[in-house]
């Protein structure tokens, strides 16, 4: 039975086709994921991948990987990336360019902003069904929290808490008004 099962198992998929994008905003770019639902063999090797392509000043909203580490490799262009660790410290704040690689450990929060005409990258994730959680946007953790938790947690007014919770309607990609100052990482 190997011929019909293991030998014929599909082991290839293409992530570069924008028409199969999972997240798509014409002005900002697209993101495609490949996990074991798309390619079952990934369940055996417990890995998955993500392809991203964003335009200048597009921002991938801050997020963390809930159940995986990620290895990000830049295939084209440049971006500014900030990464925050479990201690709330910024452990990376800088420009990444074509050919560079950066590892993003599980739970570490990351934000990416394209600083060239187009920033393209591939992420390898160490889980067949890697899941992200976002810090901002319509499906973010802040959106899921009661206003009371936000007002008490951050000591802000209910009015400010509403803005924090509801102002960003996007889920993944948004416009960024420009690159931030490049501060030294606060380790």
């Amino acid at each position, binding site marked *: 039975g190997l011929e019909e099962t293991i030998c014929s198992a599909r082991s290839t998929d293409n992530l570069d086709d924008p028409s199969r994008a999972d997240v798509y905003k014409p002005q900002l770019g697209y993101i495609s994921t490949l996990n074991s639902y798309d390619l079952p063999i990934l369940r055996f090797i417990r890995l998955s991948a993500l392809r991203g392509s964003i335009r200048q000043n597009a921002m991938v909203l801050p997020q963390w990987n*809930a159940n995986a580490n990620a290895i990000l490799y830049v295939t084209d262009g440049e971006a500014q990336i*900030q990464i925050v660790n479990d201690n709330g410290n910024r452990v990376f704040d800088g420009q990444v360019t074509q050919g560079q690689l950066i590892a993003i450990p*599980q739970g570490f929060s990351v934000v990416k902003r394209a600083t060239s005409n187009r920033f393209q990258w591939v992420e390898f994730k160490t889980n067949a069904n890697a899941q992200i959680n976002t810090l901002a946007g319509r499906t973010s953790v802040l959106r899921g*929290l009661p206003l009371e*938790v936000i007002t008490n947690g951050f000591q802000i007014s209910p009015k400010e808490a*509403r803005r924090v919770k509801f102002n960003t309607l996007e889920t993944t990609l948004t416009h960024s008004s420009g690159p*931030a*100052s490049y501060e030294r990482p606060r380790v």
Partner: protein
Amino acid sequence: QFPNECQLDQLNALEPSHVLKSEAGRIEVWDHHAPQLRCSGVSFARYIIESKGLYLPSFFNTAKLSFVAKGRGLMGKVIPGCAETFQDSSEFQPRGGEQFEGQGEEGQGQGERQRFRDMHQKVEHIRSGDTIATTPGVAQWFYNDGQQPLVIVSVFDLASHQNQLDRNPRPFYLAGNNPQGQVWLQGREQQPQKNIFNGFGPEVIAQALKIDLKTAQQLQNQEDNRGNIVRVEGPFGVIRPPLRGQRPQEEEKEEGRHGRHGN
């Protein structure tokens, strides 16, 4: 990671080795380097939340199984991508209007709009004996709405493949902080643990959340030294269903307004 970590010649009953004090409670942590815990691949903690204490949302790098040892309260988990199914929408605006500050929102009906006071993910009542499973990376909060302390014990599965970091429990704070730092970690210079927003530049937070810079700085909680369990002043008005045997507040209000009527 530890050679011969299960060569155990003697077992001991263990007491907590670290106590993290907060404004409205404390977190007691067992030393996960103790041989029997290291062999089991787990760590253990006890959360003691005083009356009106709110354990602010945080998530871990491991799966977690918790048990409510004493008291009662409320618990919320925020699961990525899930809808805000708890909604307070008692007011109706027949002529329409803004639901939120400057943003439209769902709930637009035929010629009328609902005005949500708030909407959030599921909130559950918890009481003594409840067992709560939490997956890695999922933010969770607790609130003690009882009169006695709410005591929750949790085991963290460090050795599971779901933990992809080292064999240490690592809390990530979305709000609040831990002024004492992660004292249970070995080989790391201890420094106060801040929330995640603290690590990003305030202008990044302002752009991502579409808020002003001042509010973004407030999210960073830099002047806050209340710890991760804070006291809630006044009522804690989250949307939650009534406990069995209780009637919904709105129903009681309506009845009070109109009196009882037969059909």
